[in-house]
């Protein structure tokens, strides 16, 4: 029997916060499918890695689930049409991203018929497929981490021959306030999640599996436990973890479950652990069993700015305005629009932006929920941030060096282990937007590295060119020398020949003269004789 009853010793990660949950607002209403919008806007990059390459043109008719962009390179994911209709535009449009920049999108005018492309018949038994085939299925289905990071899932499932996966963790912690999409999915479709877990487990040959859920979600825990009980697999365990932000962080959750720490800048597979979001597991089940690519996800629409906060199963590419409308529209209190939660989300400039694979929450916050930031003051080195940092870093030192733009020193303080959870900025009595400084430093370092690589390439090419020019010059000179030598030699040869000819002529002349003198007497008698002798010479 696999239940919460079997005790698992839990540990505690450093720092973290107890935050007001604000989850009840959106969990009261049941999970419903959202309407098919009139237009779907599908960015070609909804994942970490290379953007996908567009396969369709305006005017093309597409069916639901048909790939409209294929992955370029290994770290990439395809994009599928999330409903049937006609492609009306392939062009650059605003996408939900903190930069507010435009990116390539495919716009589909839907026909409302939800007509699927041909699908393979359901796979009865996933164990017929070997891990490589499973990974390929998951790759083709365009599945990326649905918890928010958007890293292509099939890559995580291939930890390499050096790593053995002992523990497979399904992350259902969902620690950020307001967000409840995983909670609703776990309550509503625990069977899908557990089936997805079994597929993932088969793919990585994990010894032990844990579904971790924060203890503020008793309904989800009960539903999962029932599903696991039905499956009757002693290697799968549902674990209630204490509610504390950010337990849902991969490394923090692993620490809670195993007591072990993922090494600095390392991956969970370094310590034999693999972590997937519960939503990802459900998507894997659909992809493998029903050959259904990732075309929809559960999204929480919440905040005091929406009339009826709830969770919706949304087709990817649906404009946010459509979702807000289905939740009763905006209330007069609507003040800020965010994608993601209040701690890690980012502000959106407009609600015409679409829902993408990584959009877990649309938060329409009121002024009271998200008051304008207070003016920052100087750091007083109170070390409150050090107390709460779940990555065991020294936020005030990171701030110090980010502020001074000392990008070497900041890396000595492990900037890249920062998960940007926002705990430090939350407790900062000087209201310093600390995470903004870290994000600034991270992107600045990446840019410098990119420029350095570009410069190295330019240097190599320049040096190679100089070498080539030098070599060509040498070769030209060598050729010229050869030629000159050849000319000289022929000249010498010709001189020698000339001399030989002249010498012969001389000799002939001398002979002739001698003979003519000798044959004064018989000359007249035998004139042809002299000529013959001459010829013989």
């Amino acid at each position: 029997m696999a239940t919460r009853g079997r005790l698992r010793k839990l540990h505690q990660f450093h720092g973290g916060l107890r935050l007001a949950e604000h989850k009840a607002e959106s969990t009261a209403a049941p999970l419903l499918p959202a309407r098919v919008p009139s237009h779907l806007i599908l960015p070609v990059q909804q994942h970490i890695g290379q953007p996908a390459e567009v396969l369709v043109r305006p005017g093309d008719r597409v069916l639901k689930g048909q790939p409209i962009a294929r992955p370029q390179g290994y770290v990439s994911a395809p994009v599928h049409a999330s409903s049937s209709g006609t492609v009306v535009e392939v062009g650059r449009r605003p996408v939900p991203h903190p930069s507010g920049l435009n990116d390539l999108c495919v716009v589909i005018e839907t026909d409302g018929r939800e007509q699927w492309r041909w699908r393979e018949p359901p796979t009865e038994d996933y164990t017929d497929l070997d891990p490589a085939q499973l990974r390929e299925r998951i790759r083709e289905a365009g599945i990326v981490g649905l918890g928010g990071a958007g890293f292509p899932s099939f890559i995580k499932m291939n930890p390499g021959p050096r790593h053995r996966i002992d523990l497979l963790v399904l992350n259902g912690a969902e620690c950020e306030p307001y967000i409840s999409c995983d909670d609703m999915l776990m309550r509503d479709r625990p069977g899908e999640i557990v089936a997805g877990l079994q597929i993932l487990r088969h793919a990585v040959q994990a010894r032990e599996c844990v579904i971790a859920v924060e203890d503020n979600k008793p309904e989800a825990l009960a539903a999962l436990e029932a599903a696991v009980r039905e499956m009757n697999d002693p290697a799968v365990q549902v674990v209630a973890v204490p509610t504390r932000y950010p337990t849902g962080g991969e490394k923090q959750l692993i620490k809670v479950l195993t007591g072990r720490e993922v090494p600095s800048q390392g991956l969970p597979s370094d310590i034999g652990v693999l972590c997937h979001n519960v939503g990802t597991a459900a998507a894997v089940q659909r992809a493998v069993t029903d050959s259904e690519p990732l075309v929809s996800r559960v999204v929480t629409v919440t905040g005091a700015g929406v009339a009826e906060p709830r969770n919706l199963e949304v087709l990817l590419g649906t404009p946010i305005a459509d979702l807000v409308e289905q939740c009763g529209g905006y209330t007069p209190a609507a003040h800020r629009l965010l994608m993601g939660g209040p701690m890690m989300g980012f502000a959106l400039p407009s609600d015409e932006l679409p829902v993408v694979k990584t959009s877990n929450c649309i938060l329409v916050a009121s002024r009271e929920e998200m008051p304008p930031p207070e003016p920052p003051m100087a750091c007083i080195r109170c070390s409150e941030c050090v107390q709460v940092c779940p990555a065991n870093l020294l936020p005030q030192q990171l701030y110090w060096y980010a502020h001074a733009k000392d990008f070497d020193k900041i890396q000595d303080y492990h900037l890249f282990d920062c998960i940007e959870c926002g705990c430090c900025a939350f407790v900062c009595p000087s209201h310093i937007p600390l995470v903004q400084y870290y994000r600034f430093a991270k992107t600045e370092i990446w840019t410098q590295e990119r420029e350095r690589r570009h410069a190295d390439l330019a240097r190599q090419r320049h040096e190679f060119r100089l070498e080539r020019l030098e070599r060509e010059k040498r070769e030209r000179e060598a050729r010229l020398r050869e030629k000159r030598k050849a000319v000289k030699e022929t000249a010498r040869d010709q001189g020698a020949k000339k001399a030989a000819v002249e010498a012969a002529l001389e000799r002939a002349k001398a002979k002739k003269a001698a003979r003519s003198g000798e044959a004064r007497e018989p000359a007249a008698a035998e004139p042809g004789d002299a000529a013959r002798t001459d010829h013989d010479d």
Partner: protein
Amino acid sequence: MMTAILALGILAGLFGLLLGYSAIRFRVEGEPIVEQINAILPQTQCGQCGYAGCRPYAEAIAAGEAEINQCPPGGEANIQALADLLGRDPLPLNEEHGEHKGKQVAVIDESTCIGCTLCLQACPVDAILGAAKQMHTVIAVECTGCELCIEPCPVDCIDMVPVRETIGTWKWPFPEDRREDIAQLPTLRRAVG
């Protein structure tokens, strides 16, 4: 007295030998200063500094023949890095050599190109592809934006285009000069109708 002097003398001699030996045995080969300067320079090979490329300029700086503020593509950041490396005071960029521009790449208008190969010969990093009487094109990822191909082109078909910022190359702004990013209400209302 004598013993003290003798003892100290022997000690000094011993330490001298030890230090001399370690100086040879544990010698650390420092990277030549020219290499270090060259590593900072942006490698555009544009020649705006007055030298034939980044390395000759690096050699000139190392020899004390050139100032550290003659590289417009590198800009202030480069001058600062050179000043740190050489222990000098940073100077403002010397305007005589040009101004600091954003990153740009050359783009050939392929319908105008006559295939003369002059730009191919001018490109310091072999980033232009083409042959005589064949259309030329710039390999954008390898172009350093040095502008050396502009001048030799007889039909003036090469343009410098600023590199567009993408989601992949976007940087978070420095918080202190960050503009207001709050989503304004009017956009929300309009969408609802």
